[in-house]
């Protein structure tokens, strides 16, 4: 496991989200966003086992999924800023960033991409390649009807898809105790899908299970991982987290994977100066691209009606 690489990617995602948060507060960004700080290690770790041809489907909380699938940071940030130089020329925004070149698909409907992920996996099987699809979803999506239909469909058709449920315990403000009466990974198992639970932000366990499961998924067997994690910020930008207990928050802040990996690096060959240099480099990089985007601006004209229908032959 390349710990430094994982650490840097987590910090990058965090820096992009913190920048976005700052820009919101300055009134420089329009709309909303759902921050993944605290749970961004999941796609970073899982992506260590993915190839470019593998597809990832994402959710409303998708910044980490996108950057883990190696989307270009500047083009990605541009999209979040509603800039025509963004991946979707500003039409998509935070919840709908997509890039066919990266095989990355996101949508803001809770669980809505999961049946589509099953379809992407179906096409891979049909074409007899060994690409996999990783479908991210949350604990909220696990109570949506079509997610349950999708689990059954993937199992019945034996499709090469790995479902990853990022269980951060709250569907917006509602705790899973009020919405689930059985374990999430057990639900997937009931459909005949091999499932695993990764508790407590255990990134090492996730790394191992993801490696095994992705290898087996390539052989055409669906898999499911529930990762118990926590988002540090609110559901979306204006959420004050009034429904969460402070001691619970502290418990999870102490389990922040960025901090844990930092400690590990420090106990290996890295010094605090090395760590500070990495942080500065990443922050400077994100500051630089956001300033470029904001200061240069863009006067690219977007034809509002173009591409409503796809006219390619």
């Amino acid at each position: 496991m390349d710990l430094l690489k994982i650490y840097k990617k987590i910090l990058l995602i965090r820096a992009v989200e913190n920048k976005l948060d700052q820009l919101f507060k300055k009134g420089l960004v329009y709309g909303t966003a759902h921050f993944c700080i605290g749970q961004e290690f999941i796609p970073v770790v899982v992506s260590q086992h993915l190839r470019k041809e593998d597809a990832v489907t994402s959710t409303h909380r998708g910044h980490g999924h996108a950057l883990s699938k190696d989307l270009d940071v500047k083009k990605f940030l541009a999209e979040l800023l509603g800039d025509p130089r963004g991946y979707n020329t500003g039409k998509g925004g935070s919840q709908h960033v997509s890039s066919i070149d990266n095989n990355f698909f996101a949508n803001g409907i809770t669980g809505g991409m999961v049946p589509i992920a099953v379809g992407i996996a179906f096409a891979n099987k049909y074409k007899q390649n060994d690409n996999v699809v990783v479908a991210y979803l949350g604990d909220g999506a696990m109570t949506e009807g079509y997610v349950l239909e999708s689990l059954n469909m993937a199992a019945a058709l034996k499709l090469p898809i790995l479902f990853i449920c990022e269980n951060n315990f709250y569907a917006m403000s509602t705790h899973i105790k009020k919405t689930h009466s059985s374990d999430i990974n057990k639900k997937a198992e009931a459909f005949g899908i091999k499932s695993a639970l990764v508790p407590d932000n255990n990134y090492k366990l996730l790394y191992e299970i993801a490696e095994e499961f992705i290898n087996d998924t390539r052989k055409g067997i669906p898999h499911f991982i529930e990762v118990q994690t926590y988002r540090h910020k609110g559901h979306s930008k204006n959420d004050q987290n009034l429904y969460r207990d402070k001691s619970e928050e502290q418990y999870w802040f102490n389990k922040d994977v960025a901090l844990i990996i930092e400690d590990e690096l420090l106990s290996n060959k890295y010094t605090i100066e090395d760590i500070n240099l990495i942080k500065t480099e990443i922050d400077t990089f994100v500051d630089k691209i956001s300033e470029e985007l904001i200061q240069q601006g863009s006067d690219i004209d977007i034809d509002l009606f173009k591409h409503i229908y796809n006219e390619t032959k």
Partner: protein
Amino acid sequence: MIKTYAQAIKDTLDEELMNDPNLFLFGEDIGVYGGCFGATKGLQEKYGNKRVIDSPMSEQAIAGLGIGAALNGLRPVIEIMFMDFITLIYDQILNHASIFSYLSNGEMKVPLVIRVPAGGGRGYGATHSKSLWSALMNIPGIKIIAPSNTREVSGLLRAAIKDNNPVIFVEHKSLYQIKDDVENAEDIIPIGKAKIVKEGNDLLLISFSKMVLDCLEVANKLENEGISIEVLDLRTVKPLDIETIKNSIDKIGKVIVVEEGFPQSGIAAEIIAQINEVCFYSLDGPIKRICTLEIPLPCSPKLENMAIPSKERIENEIRSMLNE
């Protein structure tokens, strides 16, 4: 060559399965059973269960599978058993299939055909008889085709299959067994082009799907009395061919729109609104619409007949408009 509407659909799917290895069929009971109305009968036997696939009863996941497979380079034709069930996949159409091309600036495409039978007249009752095209009409990014006859169903289906966008292909339950000679039928009929199926001078009937046949029957009957009715078949409901409609109205100022959906915010309502915008001053008077009455469709033949536009209702409305 004489075929039924259902046979014409099956033969077209057969040819396209033969031509394009990336095309596959997916839906409930479309294999050995052949689909609820026999429109896929024998295709699984011929192409195997990897290309003609019986799905679980999971409409949303069926739609999602079609969308995902289309995004990943295949050309799926999925079947939803009754148009009443289109509501189950509404989110997948509205929030997913229809937006990928637009948001990706054409880098992504969803060449997906959703075959679905609509219409009443068969006593299937309130949940298996509806014509819900208007529920789909205001979704940007999709197309809706509703063939009215056996000669054209094949050319329109082929156009739908070759299109790179999500197409809702609305078949009609009462048309499946209608026979016609399909010799020299058009191989491919462009999407978005209406057709004048009978020319006339006194009054224009605008319709689509099975109601076109009823309009024609009434128009032919009135021809014997010297009443000259023009009948326009939309063929494609969305995008709407307002040009062809306008050309007819510029010639004939009296207009009735006939459709099998409900009246409020229906396709007829939309057509009337667009006519108002583009050729209001060519009209002789108010446009009339004839629709299914706004009630859950009753099962008994007598009650159902009263609810769905009948030939009698069409004839009466024509006479009343011409006598005004």
